[in-house]
């Protein structure tokens, strides 16, 4: 656990403190994202935690121990640090770069070699190809992966990450974020993560700390922040698409309805009567193996019943053969599926079997309910 109490940093010759009386607690095993516009003191805050900068006032403790009681070099060896500019040593190979902290800890050679390969694999890099390259031979995204691997080398319980995915294109960034979140589920480190991108903050943070000009403006879970922005500054920082951003916090499993009308191949002829009996708006057509292959709505059936035979209905249903999502699909992706296939409904799958149904109305209702809280 990292605790900052009334921490202030006044750089000499600056009119205002870069960080002003900041109080913040980062619980064990969580990612706390510091987010805010450029120059609002995020990096300064981060660098005070590992004493790259000394605070002008206030106290910083890690697990109850003041950082000031520890020798700075020793303190830093125990904290993973990813700097904003990556900062790989250009004259050292990738393997040597990752091995820096293990070497400071005087790990035996074989252990370092093993750990380097392990980390490269963990970060999605091929050890054979990467190990003996120099930083200048890597792409920006690869360098950032190495920067993160280097910070994790001795498996420190605490990591400070300053825009660790800042220097890559959006696609690579999304990929790195996903991978890192998956990893974090296993390694459960206490992480202070800096970004100026609110979307990244929402995605990565267990908690978000929104900074404005050196002051903490709002602190809370992404949902709290998106539901109740503390003031106009936060509102503006989040942007007009607040609700759409909020959608990213939810998955299909929170919004779908498990009750669903299923039509076996032989039942397709009397689909309408089955739906009326089950009071269903929509019915999913299953194949012989019980796999859903599309759906029919009551509206369609009421209009077309006389015009189509079983075959025609099968074909109509098959037009929505791709309108399916998983229970773990984020709501924006489900929405995107609906728009893409012009489908009012999507089928919800779990392990390949039909689990339920979700309509656009269900999404609306879910978001509205979460707004009221």
């Amino acid at each position, binding site marked *: 656990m990292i605790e900052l109490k009334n921490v202030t940093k006044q750089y000499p010759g600056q009119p205002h403190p870069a960080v002003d009386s900041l109080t913040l607690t980062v619980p064990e095993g969580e990612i706390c994202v510091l987010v805010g516009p450029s120059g609002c003191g995020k990096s300064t805050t981060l660098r005070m935690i590992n004493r790259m900068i000394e605070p002008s006032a206030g106290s910083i403790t890690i697990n109850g121990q003041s950082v000031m009681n520890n020798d700075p070099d020793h303190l830093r060896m125990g904290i993973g*640090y990813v*700097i904003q*500019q*990556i900062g*790989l040593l*250009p*004259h050292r190979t990738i393997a040597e770069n990752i091995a820096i902290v293990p070497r400071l800890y005087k790990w035996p050679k074989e252990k370092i070699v093993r750990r380097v390969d392990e980390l490269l694999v963990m970060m999605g890099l091929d050890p054979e190809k990467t190990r003996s390259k120099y930083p200048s031979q890597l792409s920006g995204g690869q360098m950032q992966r190495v920067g993160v691997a280097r910070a994790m080398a001795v498996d420190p319980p605490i990591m400070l990450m300053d825009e660790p995915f800042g220097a890559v294109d959006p696609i690579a960034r999304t990929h790195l974020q996903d991978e890192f979140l998956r990893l974090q589920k296993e390694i459960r480190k206490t992480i202070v993560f800096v970004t100026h991108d609110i979307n990244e903050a929402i995605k990565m943070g267990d908690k978000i700390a929104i900074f404005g000009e050196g002051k903490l403006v709002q602190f809370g879970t992404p949902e709290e922040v998106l539901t109740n922005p503390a003031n106009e500054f936060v509102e503006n920082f989040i942007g007009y698409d607040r609700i759409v951003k909020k959608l990213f916090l939810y998955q299909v499993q929170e919004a779908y309805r498990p009750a669903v009308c299923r039509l076996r191949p032989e039942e397709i002829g009397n689909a309408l009567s089955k739906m009326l009996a089950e009071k269903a708006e929509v019915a999913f057509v299953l194949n012989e193996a019980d796999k859903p292959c599309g759906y029919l709505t009551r509206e369609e059936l009421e209009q077309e019943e006389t015009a189509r035979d079983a075959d025609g209905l099968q074909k109509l249903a098959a037009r929505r053969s791709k309108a399916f999502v998983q229970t773990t699909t984020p709501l924006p992706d489900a929405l995107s599926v609906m728009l893409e296939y012009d489908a009012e409904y999507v089928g919800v799958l779990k392990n390949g079997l039909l689990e339920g149904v979700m309509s656009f109305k269900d999404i609306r209702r879910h978001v509205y309910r979460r707004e009221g809280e």
Partner: protein
Amino acid sequence: MKMSWERFQIALFEKAPEAVLTHLLIVVITVALAILISVPLGVLLTRPRYRKFGVVALNILNILNAIPGMAVIALALPILGLGIKPAVVALLFQSLLPIVRNTIAGLLEVSADVKEAAAGMGMNQRQILLEVEMPLAMPIILSGIRTSTVYVVSVGTLAALIGAGGLGNMIIGGLALFMPEYLIVGAGLGAIMSIFFDRALSYLEYKITPPGVRAN
């Protein structure tokens, strides 16, 4: 002036070997001392605590460098007397600047990000200097050493004026005695020595530049 093949042979095979050795001795001792003084001085002048003296020190050295080599040698005579020792001291003055300057430039050129990362991982100041800053600055420092060495080889010929010997002896002797053979051999060998050191140190510079940092 009439050239004689016989005198040329005497100059080359009897006089030159000793002159070359003496000259080499002067160059090696001077440059070695210059490195021992300049590199630590350059390092010191880039440490935060002494950085404010950096500009002053460079200015002083610049002034020292502006004095013609001939004048320094001439001044050394009344103060230090005759021989190799005063010659080395005189040459030393002016060989310091390129090395100090390049050491400072090289160290300041090391990117702040790299130093921040190194410190952030818990490397101490000594480790950062020896494992990060020096290796990255080394090509530039070596280029300063090369400039100094070539300088000492050429101005070292003037050392003969205060009795230090070396190739200068042959040049000055050749002039005084109207013996162009001595002049040609002395000057020629001086030029060859200059080129040799220049090429050798260039090669070393290339070899010592870490592969990750080499251009292309």
